[in-house]
């Protein structure tokens, strides 16, 4: 599955709390390793990606920042995106200044449905252009987006289409249409859903797949299931463990008892997860990529991101 990483723009979405930001950061890290100039972008004033990539400094920092070889990050700010957009679209600097300073445009932006999201997605689109529109900026091969959770993620992807329908004519509407075409072009843009192997995240992922298809004509490029429990015990071993845990003669051995309970608990959980993975695979028609749960020092900051990138690399 090298394919999603060969796109220019890759949206990573999924239910909140499934580890979406870390997976987005790991995908970015992997692409950079494979030789692609990559930027991982996040929206809505967050700095989860920067933190996942081991950059604790300057939260809320605007602009593109390099964190490693071929790897950059940015936190997209709609206000800055708007100013950039105006400067780019208007033929004269003076015009841009008029709008930027009059505040009328910010009022207008606040009142127009989908405009803030459009400006945000417009910046993501700009980051993914081979020839950048931002003066002096060099191009990226890939822009990975840590998109908002399912519902809001869909709204972000739909924003250009919504806006083009509202505005119909004029430069912004034209621009929105261009962006909308880029987002729905599967050669250029990919969407990855991150989930966990549990009932509710799986249901939400299937819903996302349906909505993307129905509303935007977009197909998911990959499904990544995070923090999957290991498949450790064979059925015969489970029988032996059950028998041992029911053996009262040794019930006084506390750590033996705790260890057997932990093993049987892991098995019950793992069996439940496997059923959910089957359901996800069957209903979505996509074989999910499974990432193991990470523990100890491997689960913190950039080490976790590296470990996930390694795992993704072995599975792609």
């Amino acid at each position, binding site marked *: 599955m090298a394919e999603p990483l060969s796109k220019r723009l890759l949206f990573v979405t999924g239910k909140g709390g499934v*580890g979406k*930001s870390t997976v987005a950061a790991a995908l970015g890290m992997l692409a950079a390793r494979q030789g692609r100039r990559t930027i991982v972008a996040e929206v*809505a004033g967050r700095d*989860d990606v920067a933190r996942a990539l081991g950059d604790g400094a300057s939260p809320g920092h605007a602009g593109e920042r390099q964190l490693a070889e071929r790897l950059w990050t940015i936190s997209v700010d709609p206000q800055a995106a708007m100013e950039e957009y105006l400067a780019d679209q*208007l033929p004269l600097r003076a015009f841009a200044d*008029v*709008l930027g300073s009059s505040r*009328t*445009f910010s*009022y*207008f932006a*606040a*009142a*127009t*449905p989908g405009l803030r*999201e459009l400006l945000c997605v417009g910046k993501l689109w700009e980051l993914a252009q081979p020839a950048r529109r931002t003066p002096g900026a060099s191009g990226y091969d890939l822009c990975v987006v840590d998109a*908002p*959770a*399912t*519902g*809001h993620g*869909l*709204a*972000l992807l*739909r*924003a250009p289409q919504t806006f083009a*329908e*509202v*505005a*119909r*004519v*004029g430069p*912004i509407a034209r621009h929105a249409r261009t962006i909308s075409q880029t987002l729905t072009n599967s050669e250029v843009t990919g969407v990855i859903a991150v989930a966990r192997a549990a*009932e*509710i995240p799986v*249901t*939400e992922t299937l*819903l996302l797949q349906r909505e993307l298809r129905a509303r935007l004509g977009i197909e998911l490029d990959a499904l990544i299931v995070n923090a999957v429990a290991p498949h*450790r*015990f064979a059925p015969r*071993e489970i029988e*032996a*463990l059950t028998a041992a845990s029911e053996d009262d003669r*040794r019930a006084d*051995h*506390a*750590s*033996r008892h*705790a*260890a057997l309970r*932990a*093993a049987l*608990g*892991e098995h*019950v959980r793992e069996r*439940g997860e496997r059923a*959910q993975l089957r359901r996800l695979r069957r209903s979505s028609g996509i074989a999910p990529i499974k990432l193991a749960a990470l*523990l*100890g020092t491997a689960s*913190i900051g950039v080490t976790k991101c590296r470990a996930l990138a390694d795992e993704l690399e072995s599975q792609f």
Partner: protein
Amino acid sequence: MAARGAKVAVVTIDPARRLATSLGLRELGNEPRRIDARRFERAGISMQGELWAMMLDPKRTFDELIERLSPDLRSREEVLSNRIYQELSSAVAGSQEFTAIAKLYELDHEHDFDLIVLDTPPSRHALDFLEAPTRLTQFFEGRALQVFLRPTGLGMRLVGRGTGLVFSVLKRVTGVDLLADLSVFFHSLAGMIDGFKERAVQVEALLRDADTSFLLITSPEPEPVEEALYFHERLRIAGMRFGGTIVNRVHHHVPGRLDEAELRAALAGELGEELAGKVLDSYKEYRALAARDRSAIARVADRLGSTGLVLVPFLDHDVHDLAGLQEVERHLFGSERAPASPAQRAAVS
């Protein structure tokens, strides 16, 4: 709470359909619906009170609000058929927060629930919701709207000769249609603005009411814990009442040091070397998780205080049905560590 006799409404404004799944319902509507008590009996739960549930449908709520606030039929039809309105009311971003406010107002004013439990979207979007009443009030009172409503404002200028550098530039960027449509839209809304404003102001007061409190729900994993701490800080700044933290999916701490060699020997005797090794691996992973959870909880207790801190253990099976919910409920209310003074209304994030 419903099982103990209260009349409770559970409301989700999250576009995901989790609540319905958890309660074993196929669909939830835009109006609160009482959940059949027999459902709970079947799951072995004795229900003294009433549990009602609903899921916000932003489009429908918006339409109903317009119908209710329109001064006359003509302005109602004008708004409902306006293109800007149609996009605004069906786009998730923005309208979800706005309609949640309208719905909360309605639930509080027109029903007699003892407790309204509001399940918000994940925390960053929950913040959008908390800030929505203030933003709306500012918008309705602010210049943005006045620009569109003033007879000499944007609308007139566009319809007229399009004077003024700002407007000609704006027209150039956005196209003339959009500005005209926006102007028509806000003009047709003009008669309803007081109604919108009233709701925003009332809900703002409701969110800050002494009977409202916010519960933070988090798993003990590092990222969600940071998120919860951040959210708490924002609540504090906004002057909203924090009711406590529920840490969900906690791995039970196993006290004492692990004597690996001793345990391996004990297990190997009855299970054989290979299986004993696997059990040991599994146990070590469990202990690592328990240690991680323990330090996360210590961090939460340190920052947010231990009053109102409730731990729900990691259940071996996934919680997505009534029986699972009841098990969680027992952990929430069963111990002496029940949440401090269950508030009349609670928002859950």
